[in-house]
């Protein structure tokens, strides 16, 4: 019983540390002498090995480390290759539209428009290859300027960014009127 508990302590320590830990140090943490600790660890190693477990303990020069069994390498490759579910959330769409129409734009400027921190959204859009760095702004701290990618244009069937004009204040007014007219048109139909 006592031994079982020491084993649990050792497992937790090795798990947390991740790297190789000297048996001497482990002995200090579990309040046993080095020899006893080593015996307990060797015992654990045997059991990890014989039982159908995903992890085992390896010994390296008086230190021990927890790691996965080599035979399970394939499953690990598989999981990293399984695509995560990607969705364009409202937050991402909002950020994308601001970048599309206001590019080149810094993260700070995006945040000023949205009123909230936008690190996560910007990072995700970069990961999705919808936006990328366009250079640096000539301002204190030389902040990164973001713009849309070729991939973005291709996905929307746009020839160039000219088909997606940058909006200036007068344009916005025009847009408003346009939008109203469009709405009217729709109603007429």
């Amino acid at each position, binding site marked *: 019983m006592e031994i079982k508990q020491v084993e649990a302590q050792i497992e*937790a320590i090795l*798990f*947390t540390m*991740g790297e190789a830990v000297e048996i001497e140090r482990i002995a200090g943490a579990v309040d046993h002498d080095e020899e006893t600790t080593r015996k307990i660890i060797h015992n654990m190693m045997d059991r990890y090995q014989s039982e159908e477990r995903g992890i085992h303990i390896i010994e390296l020069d008086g230190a021990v480390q927890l*790691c996965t069994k080599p035979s399970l390498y394939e499953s*690990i*490759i598989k999981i*990293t*290759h399984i*695509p*995560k579910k*990607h*969705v*364009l959330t409202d937050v991402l*769409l*909002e950020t*994308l*539209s*601001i970048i*599309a*129409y206001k590019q080149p734009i810094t993260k700070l400027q995006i945040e000023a*428009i*949205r009123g909230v921190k936008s690190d996560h959204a910007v990072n995700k859009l970069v*990961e*999705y*290859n*919808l936006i990328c760095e366009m250079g640096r702004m000539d301002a204190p701290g030389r902040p990164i300027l973001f713009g849309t990618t070729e*991939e973005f244009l291709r*996905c*929307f069937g*746009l020839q160039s960014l000219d088909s*997606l004009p940058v*909006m200036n204040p007068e344009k*916005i007014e025009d*847009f*408003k009127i346009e*939008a109203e007219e469009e709405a009217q048109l729709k109603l007429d139909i």
Partner: protein
Amino acid sequence: MSIPVKLEAFEGPLDLLLHLIDKNKINIYDIPIVVITEQYLEYIKQMEAKNLEIMSEFLVMAATLINIKSKMLLPVEVTEEEEEVDPRQELVERLLEYKMYKYISEELKDKQLDASKVMFKPPTIPPEIAGYKEDINVEGLLSDLTLAKLHEIFKSIVKKQADKIDPIRSKFGKIEKEEINLSAKLIQIQEYGILHKIFYFRSLLEAQNTKMEIIVTFLGILELIKIGRIKIEQENRTDDIKITYLATDIIQMEEVGF
């Protein structure tokens, strides 16, 4: 009444109110509003009005308490259909809700303490696997998105921003900082006074070039009235103000501790 607790220790008006209810050992449903209001106001008096925003929140609560107090003093009009509503009802409900969250946050605190004893392990994905870059199907990702929709989203953001702009204040021009010195202006007015003895407020203002100058001149007049160097008269409310210069010399404002 002694104030044992610094007001800054309270997170907000509801927190203070709960403290008072607790201190008086009274039930939330049975708040003696008069006593509590007095204690509440006493606290506010002690408050150092460093942060106007926080102060105003406490004042809103004070106003609510006084409002309830006054309602309770008035005879209750009971109409046939509606039942008599205790004016404290809404406050009690708010307090109860707030109290509930305070209670829950204590529970969460304990949970956090327990959970903080759990250790995790950083990912140890072999570099050759970690280097694998997943192909993201961007087209699939954008399948539901049209250019029109993107435009729509942007427009709603622009509109939201437009909503946020104060239509009146945003039209205020930039305030130009002009170096108009009140002491200098006071000397000017006094010189004008010695010269004219009796003069009119409007004609004095007409001689000023900018809005700022007019304001400073007005302040100067007020100051001169205060120290008794001029006398003003006005027949009717909209009439011009007649100013009589009483002194025969010019006083440096520094001399009167200005």
